[in-house]
């Protein structure tokens, strides 16, 4: 039987501590009483591999690989129902964000539609300072949509453009260089503190 990390003995700081450290503020994950309110409230709960509560139990059990391979954080739609209903005020949505970036950094979720969507969006933000839906839609669709979806999406796209709800070209902000410096330095600082 494959030895899970929880059985393989102590390897420095626990997964739980790592996740808590990587989340801003005080996420209170150690206070989770495993009640399941988050899992019960989640609109995407039915579509997740593991419910949010299960993911937290897995984090406590040091099951890194299973957690990073799970689609759970990627299906979080940031509705914050879990966060406002949690009886121990655990910052669940923030923890989901942490798991997303941790997963990518460790090499998981590459080339998935969900990771790609965020990455593509962010690239436009970095390169222009503003979002660019048309670019995002075309690049993303070309990579991930099935042929069946194209007619519907194209129709919607035409409708949007006819009503001037989508730019044809991206807009650059004036202070783009300054923004890029700021964002790059932020990444460096985060890297250094890890």
């Amino acid at each position, binding site marked *: 039987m494959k030895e899970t990390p929880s059985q393989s003995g102590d390897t420095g700081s626990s997964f739980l501590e790592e996740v808590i450290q990587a989340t*801003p503020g005080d996420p209170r994950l150690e206070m989770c009483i495993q009640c399941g309110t988050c899992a019960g409230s989640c609109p995407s709960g039915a579509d997740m591999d593991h419910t949010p509560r299960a993911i937290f139990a897995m984090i406590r059990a040091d099951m890194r690989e299973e957690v990073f391979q799970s689609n759970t954080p990627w299906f979080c739609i940031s509705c914050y129902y879990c966060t406002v209903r949690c009886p121990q005020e655990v910052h669940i949505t923030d923890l989901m964000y942490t798991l997303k970036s941790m997963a990518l950094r460790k090499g998981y979720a590459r080339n998935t539609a969900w990771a790609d969507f965020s990455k593509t969006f962010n690239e436009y933000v970095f390169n222009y300072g503003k979002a660019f839906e048309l670019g995002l839609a075309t690049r993303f669709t070309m990579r991930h949509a099935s042929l069946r979806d194209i007619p519907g999406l194209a129709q919607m796209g035409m409708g949007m453009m006819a009503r001037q709800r989508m730019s044809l070209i991206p807009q650059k902000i004036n202070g783009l260089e300054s923004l890029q410096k700021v964002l790059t330095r932020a990444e460096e600082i985060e890297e250094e503190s890890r």
Partner: protein
Amino acid sequence: MRKYLFYPGCSLERNASAYYDSVMALREPLGIEFEEIEDWNCCGATEYTSLHRLGSFALQGRNLALAAKQVAGGNNVLAAPCSACYLNLSKAEHYLRGDEHLAAQVNEALATGGLSYRPGTIDVRHMLDILLNDIGLEEIRAKVVKPLTGLRVAAYYGCFVIRPDYEHRFSSPEYPTVLEDLLEVLGAEVVEYPAKAHCCSGHMPSISAPSAYELIRRLIAMAVEKKAHTIVTLCPMCQLNLDAYQADMNRFFGTKYRMPILYFTQLIGLAFGKAPEELGFGKELVDARPALKKIGVKMVHPAEETGGTAPAAPKPRKKEEGLPMPKMPAKHQNEEVS
């Protein structure tokens, strides 16, 4: 003159230009002046936060720092009509205020761009909050010249304005009623809409369409069931999902819903007597003209005509016998008791 700093966000420039137009149209009747932040950048929606921790704070930080430069005469309120932008900016402000170490790191990053930000300088507020609390219902009521009588509206809040609501600006994260109060002041008939705080599915239509369509379907179906003429939103993302994806959702489920989705500021504008063209009508994909007909408003629309019959008014319910219901505090059956 009420002065506010203004953060439109990427949506208001294009996708949600109807929201932008209608917000701008309210300036004159309500005596509001907006000063847009110079050279603001995207707030990152939920995408930047997903993959960057400090980076997303720095992204908001730049906007807050730029806004801080424009604070004059004590006017430090930054109006953010888009719910996602509102959440991102106010959440960043909240976290930076509470965590010195984080604020120091963010300022270190901002410094490379020649900027700095002292947490607490800017008060980020949503347009709904400003209308309810700064302007107030009484003043709005006084400015109504064409009450929206006969228009049945489902008030839809979405997620980000009422959750997590760190500054406790809205009455309830589950069952708020403040938007309904506003719509009633405009003369509209507000229908009971229990899904008012349910998620529109955010960016899911791009990521996992079937789950997204289901969430969208629920919202539209309930409004139809409650015989609403239109759903009113506070957020460009919600408007996009419910409006632009309605056709796709219909295709997926084989339904034929045609529920127009409007911004609450558009309705305020109509009640103030503004012409629909001034308020961004015509930009919605699901034609709003049937709803406008209910209140006798006509407009020229570039899109196709739509058919469909008006939903019949519901029959009044017979008073039932039985055990008494618990006493609820105010006029709304679903108001929170604190």
